[in-house]
């Protein structure tokens, strides 16, 4: 059965017809062509497909597209402002926190959710916040460094 979905996706109003059992990750990737949201396990464990729904982090493989009707969805494609990277993106690049990059989108979104709530997190808070986002390349050290560095930059920005 098809349903009508109205949502804000990366700041744009989207009206779409979705199949009632379509997963949010499949909707984002196949219908919206937002391929930056990767799917690593389809069981809600690896954190790769993390997106923000109304500001809260969500595993897009555990949510139906129909459930975000009336919500605001942010994916990695919506993280950068016009012409400028988000401080987290810049910090991930500069800290060498990206190796294969497959977990990066999910890491960035989980980190954004953390910084939105705790603008100046401790290393322990970062490690706890990212415990559900698996990375097999970096050993997490540089990812933690990147989030710490981004927090400093966001915090010190005037206004």
């Amino acid at each position, binding site marked *: 059965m098809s349903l009508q979905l109205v949502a804000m996706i990366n700041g744009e109003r989207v009206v779409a017809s979705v199949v009632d059992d379509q997963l949010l990750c499949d909707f984002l990737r196949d219908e919206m062509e937002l391929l930056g949201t990767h799917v690593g396990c389809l069981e809600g464990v690896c954190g790769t497909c993390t997106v923000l729904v109304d500001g809260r982090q969500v595993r897009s493989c555990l949510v139906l597209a129909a459930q975000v009707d009336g919500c605001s969805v942010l994916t990695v494609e919506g993280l950068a402002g016009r012409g400028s990277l988000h401080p987290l*993106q810049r910090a991930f690049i500069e800290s060498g926190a990206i190796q294969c990059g497959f977990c990066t989108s999910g890491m960035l979104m989980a980190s954004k959710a953390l910084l939105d709530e705790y603008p100046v997190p401790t290393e322990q808070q970062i490690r706890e916040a990212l415990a559900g986002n698996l990375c097999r390349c970096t*050993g997490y050290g540089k990812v933690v460094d990147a989030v710490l560095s981004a927090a400093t930059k966001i915090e010190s920005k005037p206004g």
Partner: protein
Amino acid sequence: MSPVVGQPVPRLESEAKATGRARYTADLSLPRMLHARLVRSQHPHANVLKVDSEVAASQLGVRAVVTSVELTSKYPLLHAFNSAAAHAVEGRSGDQKLFDTRVRYVGEPVAAVVADTDAHARRAAQLVEVEYQDLPAVLDTVAACAEGAIQLHAGAPGNFAQHLVRRTGDIDAALSSAALVLEEQFVTPRQKQAQLEPTCALADVDADGKITVWSPNQAPHRIREALADIFGIPLHKVRVINPFIGGSFGKGDGLTAEPYAVLLALLMHRPIKLQFSRYEDFVGTDARHPTRTRLTAGFRADATLVALRAHVIADAGAYLGHSEGVAAVMIRQFLAPYRIDCADLEASVIYTNTPVTGSFRGYGGPQACFPLEHMIDLGAARLGVDPLEARSRMRIRKGDAWRELGPIASDGFGTCLQGGAAAFDWNKKRARTPAETGPKRIGVGMACASWGSGVSGRPGVFDYSGAHVRLNADGSVEVATAGCDLGTGLRTTLAQICADALGVPLDMVHMSEIDTDITPYEIGAHASRSLYRNGQAVQIAAAHARRQVLEYAASKFEVAFEDLDLTNGQILVRGVPGRASSLSEVTRRALVEDHIEFYGHGGTRVANAPTFVAQFAEVAVDSSTGQVTLLRLLTAQDVGRAINPDIVAGQAQGAAHQGIGYALYEDLQVDGETGSVLNGLFMDYRVPTSMDAPTSEVILVEEPDPSGPFGAKGAGEPGIIPTAPAIANAIFHATGASMTQLPMTPERVLAALRATGREMVK
């Protein structure tokens, strides 16, 4: 111009990855593309009698169900293959068939569903019913070796996939003269790469029958050769392309989804995208060989080794795959870091009805390193010698013969040991008396490994990389190599090498896409060879192009070749400041006036370089629960030259983290009754998270090897090899408990503490 070699420049592709614009295989689409999923055997050993596809085929969106039974009659000429996809020179004996009618492990493909969308294919694949005739199954190496056990493969009596023996010196005399002889049995687990990107392949066949495959593989040219072989077509009819790769660690060191996707594309006359679920990735792609090793070690009074006897029994799983290579490496690793005169080494790799094991970062190294390095600490403790001192005394060093390649030319081993120990504060930490009260015992341990840079140097082994460096008319540069960037930063590092070797700014260098139609031959990203071998090829190709440019400029400027220099994209006449010309003026003039393109080619010659690593671990052991907390891990690694220090340090950190998983958590378990993998999901297979270890420290030792590009050596694997024994040795130091089985779970640590009488009694 300041050189870029040695600079921690950010990776070329990081912005694409940080913004979600990097495209991985699953992101690609082609017009008229269909989606496929495999149906896999639920029986460990059986003949497939019948595949009932009627229900699945009648589902909405389903285009076809392809079954083993049907294929065998339709395509009797498909060649058997070996998933290791060895290149032609090494020969290719295949024991595996696409959709075989006899299945040998739970998870072997028996059918495929092709549908309009992946969701349709996923659902319909669950509806295919298969009728099996069960055969007796051997689910571990003991059962497989038992008298009268069923034979998995006609050509392998006793289920021996490989049997290797290496003997040097008079082992019995050496053992009887030793000050101390110890014997232990060691067990290592089946570990999975668990890269975050699930396995996937996209295949297309054009009107001329040319096959194009996109997949996250580590060896595009070997994949191309293997596919040409299976389908009986010439190499130029197969094209393999690497999109971005979401981690691999050995998983893609051969065929995975590719031949199935190609077969389905041929049958359907449509492009096919075939994706594996995470469970399929766990059971349907190579894991690290689990092993049991009996090790006998003879020590001199100073705790150096005089003799080693090792018998390794490794589980190959159901097919040969990489087992021959892994067995050879295991044997070699027992003797790699130290001078040991007498050795009796034997490796038996056994077929079982379990998923295939094969290539995984370290490729046999960790399975040998754990027994050897823990045994050294057991011996050193008995003889009252500091284990670091014991290793320093017997380590191989500059001038020693190494792998049929003559003397070791670069030796950073001593610096790894001493520099690592100093940074770790080894002597002080080692001398601490463990607190006798309280539940936490703190201790430190260390372990070493020596590793190669590629596989060159053994007789009959072919190890080659080629590179092209082409100058565009505007002086910008295209570099073509098939060296895969698995997330390692290889492409950035190669661009740095090209920039300096040619004399152009880094932002003028572009790394071409990896495409076997364009990129020259190379054997693949494995054995810590990629930077070392592709770097050599790029450096030679860049120098070749540079020479062409300067020779042309010399003729046009009417100056001697020797008086010209190319640096930072400028051609300079030495000692004549006014006579500079931009590279682009020369390249454009050459093209337009003289119809000359500058095109450098480079390739490798027989060469290898030894790498060394020493790892130091500090642990806290809770003696009431057996819980081990890793407090600190330091890697001191000889990388020859850090072309990009951030990138190579990232390799060492990532390798150590996988080593931590191997030491403490990871074990892909096969049910002893059913042959099913019990924990083939991220929910159940425990990989380390951000909470499990502190940021590991890295000391880069730079002892340039004359054969390496700017002195660089291999760096991808060494850091995973000694991690488990370093942690085991720290537990031993903290508690006196000797851990001989990985992973060192709380249950096992507690049992070992009980054996020493040192568990805390509440």
